[in-house]
């Protein structure tokens, strides 16, 4: 790989062991992926923050970097952790908070912004064409598809190392030639609600697996777009999609394989069967936007207060919460019995057996929650979630 003189100095250890380690790992990954050089990034976003998910090995990796004096060279943000730092919502296992705090402190000493959200684009929206090194699969696919910024699906540790040198390898989705659709997906549905978006995303991820789908779909809101993209980045290895009418980059689809997805492909999603109800209803995977909160409020105004014995969580970033509070939306949602939770989400919090049955509009959460916590999970639209959460349980 070609390195500039400055990069060579880092590579040879002239700026210290920690930066040398960072550039060596990045060069090695880049070489495996055919990169011929590195590229400057404007921001990094680190995933793998929850102690529940990275454990002692992850904690020690990060503390080792911090102890050796590593500092971020570019704006760097962080994914959610295992709990809400502003209030106690989840009973934490013994010693959990202390370990989680050590992870945060390691990042703080490295100069990362303690954003604790999977939607870094709501903290600072990247520009079209900017190069990034982002972890968090749902943020990566949104950045590439909806914003037109460029990032690979960087593994959690790599985005940290990239932040330290302000560079990543120039390969994959950074390169024009690699940002081309590989398959056309025609979605034959009249409308896509947030719940069908979740199923649709899971189905596209499972079917396409890797590569870049060119998706033709009607009437997709930004909320449904985020849900769909997050789901396909979970069930597949997809870092970018072209969504007709949304993705700004030019795409040539002549001669591509074409598949069709219609209502028969996910019968369970459209019937919205309610079954025996859930003990947790939640939206906010990816973290809720201010529009999501507004929509929810209109549903609560329609259906009323959360019923006894049920809980309704809205997980969001601290900045979106602040905006919702300033606009009076937060207070009204709380008044309806919803709980607004920041800094964390059900996927990364140590929920243990706290909830047996979870209902959500998120295809991504559907994919992970049963595996991570052993819960039974149903997908419903946010309107149906509010409706069912407000129904009293008849015993």
């Amino acid at each position, binding site marked *: 790989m070609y390195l500039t003189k400055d990069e060579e100095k880092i590579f040879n250890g002239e700026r210290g062991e920690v930066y040398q380690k960072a550039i060596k*790992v990045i060069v*090695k*990954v880049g070489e*495996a*992926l055919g990169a011929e050089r590195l590229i400057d990034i404007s921001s990094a976003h680190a*995933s*793998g923050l929850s102690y529940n*998910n*990275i*454990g*002692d*090995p*992850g904690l*020690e*990796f990060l503390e080792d970097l911090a102890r050796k004096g590593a500092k971020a060279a570019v704006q760097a943000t962080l994914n959610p952790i295992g709990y809400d730092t502003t209030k106690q919502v989840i009973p934490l296992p013994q010693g959990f908070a202390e370990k989680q705090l050590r992870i945060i402190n390691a990042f703080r000493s490295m100069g990362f912004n303690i954003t604790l959200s999977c939607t870094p684009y709501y903290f600072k929206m990247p520009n079209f064409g900017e190069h990034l090194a982002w*972890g*968090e*699969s749902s943020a*990566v696919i949104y950045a590439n598809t909806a914003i037109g910024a460029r990032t*690979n*699906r*960087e*593994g*959690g*540790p*790599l*985005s940290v190392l990239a932040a330290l040198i302000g560079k990543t390898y120039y390969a*994959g989705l950074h390169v024009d030639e690699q940002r081309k659709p590989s398959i056309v997906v025609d979605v034959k549905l009249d409308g896509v609600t947030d719940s069908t978006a979740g199923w649709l995303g899971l189905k596209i*991820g499972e079917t396409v*697996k*890797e590569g870049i789908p060119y998706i033709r779909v009607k009437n997709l809101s930004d909320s449904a777009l985020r849900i769909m993209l997050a789901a396909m*980045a*979970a*069930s*597949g*290895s997809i870092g970018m999609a072209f969504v007709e009418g949304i993705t700004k980059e030019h795409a040539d689809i002549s001669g591509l394989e074409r598949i069709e997805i219609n209502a028969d492909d996910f019968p369970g999603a459209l019937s919205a069967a309610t079954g025996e109800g859930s003990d947790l209803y939640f939206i906010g995977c990816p973290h809720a936007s201010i529009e999501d909160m507004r929509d929810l409020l209109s549903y609560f105004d329609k259906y009323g207060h959360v019923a006894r014995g049920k809980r309704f969580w809205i997980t969001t970033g601290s900045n979106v919460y602040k905006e919702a509070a300033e606009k009076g939306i937060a207070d009204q949602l709380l008044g309806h019995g919803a709980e607004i939770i920041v800094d964390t989400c059900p996927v990364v919090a140590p929920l243990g057996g706290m909830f047996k049955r979870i209902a959500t509009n998120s295809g991504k959460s559907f*994919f*992970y929650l049963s*595996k*991570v916590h052993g819960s039974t999970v149903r997908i419903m639209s946010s309107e149906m979630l509010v409706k069912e959460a407000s129904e009293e349980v008849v015993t």
Partner: protein
Amino acid sequence: MTLKRIVEGNFDSEALVSLTPISFFGDIDPNTGVVKDQNSNIFGKSVKGKLLILPGTRGSTVGSYVLYALAKNGVAPSGIIVKTAEPILIVGCILGNIPLASGLTDNYIDEKISGKSVFLDSETAELVVR
């Protein structure tokens, strides 16, 4: 087929073949190495010490930390061979020092190879099933 070694090491072990891509976060228990994905053909089996053969990886970018944790906890696969390697997998294998190769062809994604002793021939870069 010629395999490309991405992380060097010893690719000589008992094979464990996953027919579908794995998300190391969610699909594998980092403390035990046991496969948690109920839809997987290797559900309930441990990847510890096995040469894990699979089409590729999917899902969460936290997967790199899970690979690293598997290595630190002594329950990592002895090596991993995939069709195509994505950054999440490569970084995890580099940090965890787990031998990794890519370029596998579809005919090796076959349950019949599971349990057999396999090795990567260093001269031909072919995967040999004993």
